[in-house]
């Protein structure tokens, strides 16, 4: 056996998957997982753990996989992470656990993410659920938002015995896991819905169709409905646009709109009653995971797709695996390219995107080299659809309607990093609503931290 290289994971053929919405990666089977687990050096001072935002005891679970004790492995995983089947699929492992793996110094790091996914899937398929429904202490806690931060916080609070209600603005629970990340990366029915069912089995109540800040407010929840503490995990939902001419043309979308139509409203299915534009030639502006998701969705809907990104490949913020998959599927990368105008035909439909070439200059505040326009380099890309994937910012609906809840200049809720406590007593926050757009696992970590703080806060206030 070649210990320097990881066991390859089986995937759908690029040419085949480019035309369907089924999951790209099949994951390991038992034999493959055990073989890959055997590559783990079981380091005493395991660096991988420090790379994990929720500090999963990675070598311990991998040793159980190696021995074929999958149920035991799942217990170790689930004691630290509320959504291992999700994280195994969407975490940027290369910059977290796997990035710290000693094996990676000379050869491939251990495929920790794929092993995590294998164990979580195995547990789900075998009907194994971690954590019991605790005896209720009758104390009501509200969780706002049912994305990764909210679900994690709600699950932990339920395990502590609290009477937890999750409020979700959309008609389905899951937040970004449902509306944002596509089916081919994260199956909704088998993975996401199952995680939410597990949560309900712990006694968590989920009320959909409630927009906090509009349908009711945090103050009303606390003063009139008897909630003793509130966790805000409302995410960063507002799309950014570039502010360039032509952005209002027909056929220009935010990635949020495009992905929500496809993922939440199932517009990729011809039978869905919600439509989506099936462009022939699509430009996706941006280089993050959301840009990759939008591009690969458009590709599957039958388009030739260009990623238009102003920096170079090294600066692409997307996970390496997503970029690799996108390339394999035939997405064209127009790097060091920046749009300056969107052009439209006489009926108002997009017919092209005018771009300039860029070169990299000195590093900017983010530490990445600043892209600089090359004078006179304007050129056109003919497209009929443009998708803007430039990042998102938090929605002010909650902060603007809650007394005493302070935000920073980016409209992010101010919360103590160590506890999640906001400036309003009894109100905690975490995830993208606090940090701005980040990752699923960071949001989960924040949800977990806040659950612990809420427990301490409520115990202290009942003692007084």
């Amino acid at each position, binding site marked *: 056996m070649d210990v320097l290289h990881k066991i390859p994971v089986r995937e759908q053929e690029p040419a085949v998957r480019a035309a369907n919405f089924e999951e790209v990666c099949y994951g390991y089977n038992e034999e493959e997982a055990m073989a890959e687990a055997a590559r783990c050096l079981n380091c005493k001072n395991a660096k991988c753990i420090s790379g994990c935002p929720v500090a999963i005891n990675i070598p311990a679970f991998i040793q159980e996989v190696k021995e074929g004790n999958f149920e035991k492995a799942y217990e170790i995983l689930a004691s630290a992470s509320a959504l291992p089947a999700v994280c195994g699929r969407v975490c940027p492992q290369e910059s977290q656990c796997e990035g710290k793996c000693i094996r990676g110094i000379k050869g491939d790091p251990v495929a920790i993410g794929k092993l995590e996914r294998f164990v979580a899937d195995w547990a789900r398929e075998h009907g194994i659920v971690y954590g019991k429904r605790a005896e209720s202490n009758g104390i009501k806690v509200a969780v706002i938002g049912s994305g990764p931060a909210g679900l994690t916080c709600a699950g932990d609070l339920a395990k502590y015995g609290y009477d937890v209600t999750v409020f979700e603005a959309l*008609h389905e629970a899951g937040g970004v896991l449902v509306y944002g990340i596509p089916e081919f990366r994260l199956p909704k029915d088998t993975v996401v819905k199952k995680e939410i069912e597990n949560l309900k089995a712990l006694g968590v109540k989920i009320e959909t169709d409630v927009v906090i800040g509009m349908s009711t407010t945090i103050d009303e929840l606390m003063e009139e409905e008897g909630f003793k503490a509130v966790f805000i995990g409302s995410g960063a939902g507002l799309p950014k646009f570039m502010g360039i001419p032509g952005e209002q043309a027909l056929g220009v979308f*935010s990635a*949020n709109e495009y992905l929500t*139509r496809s993922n*939440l*409203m199932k517009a990729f299915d011809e039978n869905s*009653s919600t439509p989506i534009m099936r462009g022939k030639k699509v430009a996706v502006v941006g280089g993050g995971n959301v840009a990759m998701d939008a591009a690969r969705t458009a590709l599957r809907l039958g388009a030739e797709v260009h990623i238009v990104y102003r920096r170079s490949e090294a600066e692409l913020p997307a996970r390496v695996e997503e970029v690799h998959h996108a390339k394999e599927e035939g997405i064209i990368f127009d790097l060091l390219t920046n749009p300056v105008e969107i052009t439209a035909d006489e009926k108002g439909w997009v017919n092209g995107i005018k771009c300039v070439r860029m070169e990299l200059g000195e590093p900017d505040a983010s530490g990445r080299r600043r892209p600089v326009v090359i004078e006179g380099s304007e050129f056109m890309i003919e497209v009929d659809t443009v998708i803007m994937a430039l990042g998102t910012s938090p929605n002010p609906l909650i902060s603007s309607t809650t007394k005493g809840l302070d935000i920073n200049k980016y409209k992010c809720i101010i919360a103590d990093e160590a506890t999640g406590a906001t400036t309003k007593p009894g109100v905690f926050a975490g995830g993208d609503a606090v940090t701005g757009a980040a990752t699923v696992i960071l949001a989960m970590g924040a949800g977990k931290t806040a659950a612990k703080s809420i427990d301490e806060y409520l115990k202290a206030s009942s003692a007084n």
Partner: protein
Amino acid sequence: MFKILNAKTLAENIFLMDVEAPRVAKSCLPGQFVIVRSHEDGERIPLTICDYDREKGSVTIVVQIVGAGSYRLSTLKTGDYIQDFVGPLGKPSELTNTPIEELKKKKIVFVAGGLGTAPVYPQAKWLYEHGITADVIIGAKTKELVILEKEMGSVSNLIITTDDGSYGRSGMVTVALKSLVEEEGKHYDLCISIGPMIMMKFVCLLTKELGIPTIVSMNPVMVDGTGMCGGCRLVVGDEVKFACVDGPEFDGHKVDFDQAMKRAAMYRTKEGRDFLKIKEGDSHHGGCGQCGGDK
């Protein structure tokens, strides 16, 4: 799931529903809207609130059948349940946060076109409850399509006009408004116009000429209604606004209606137009930007 307490037909292809939605009923104000999804696999349809009863915990919506989503909603009857009913969304009418004394000094006229009568009603009613009786012009294509006449009549000075002259005055709402101001000695300090986009556009052209500040309520295509998708963006003055969170009401003299009408047509396909023709029939008289009925 949200129970339909009462469902009734108001006119051909236009129906009313009182829906049990206590959270919405408790916090909504005139000018706001809800998003309704009739069935589990249905579309999310934004609808402006027509009335609400805080004690009963119910909200009234009036719907015109314009496509598959509204058609499926129309098949539900009293006692049935609506899958999703979320709100209130958008900002309340500016009237509701203007001091009453200030409003009492103003002469207000509402110009409602077709289905736009429904969202005008709660505003006229709200003013009436605060001691202000506004003038309301309801325009409809023909007599049978005039809705909420009795209700509106009880909270305002009502003027009805029909395109074909079959009821009330004869002609478009703009003819009635122009006549009121130029020939009948009326003076208005504020106009609030809600109806098909093409109607609001022409009302705004007229009120600009007449020097009457005008508010319009926009109802573009949207998905979530909370600012997330950006599909509802409009150009107002030189700014891009999201109808769902910045509106739905805007300064009508600043709205780029031509752009908004183009955007409204984005998801209309040939198939959709055929469906409209069959299902909507005579009640449709332009404003969609697609059928050519406005020309």
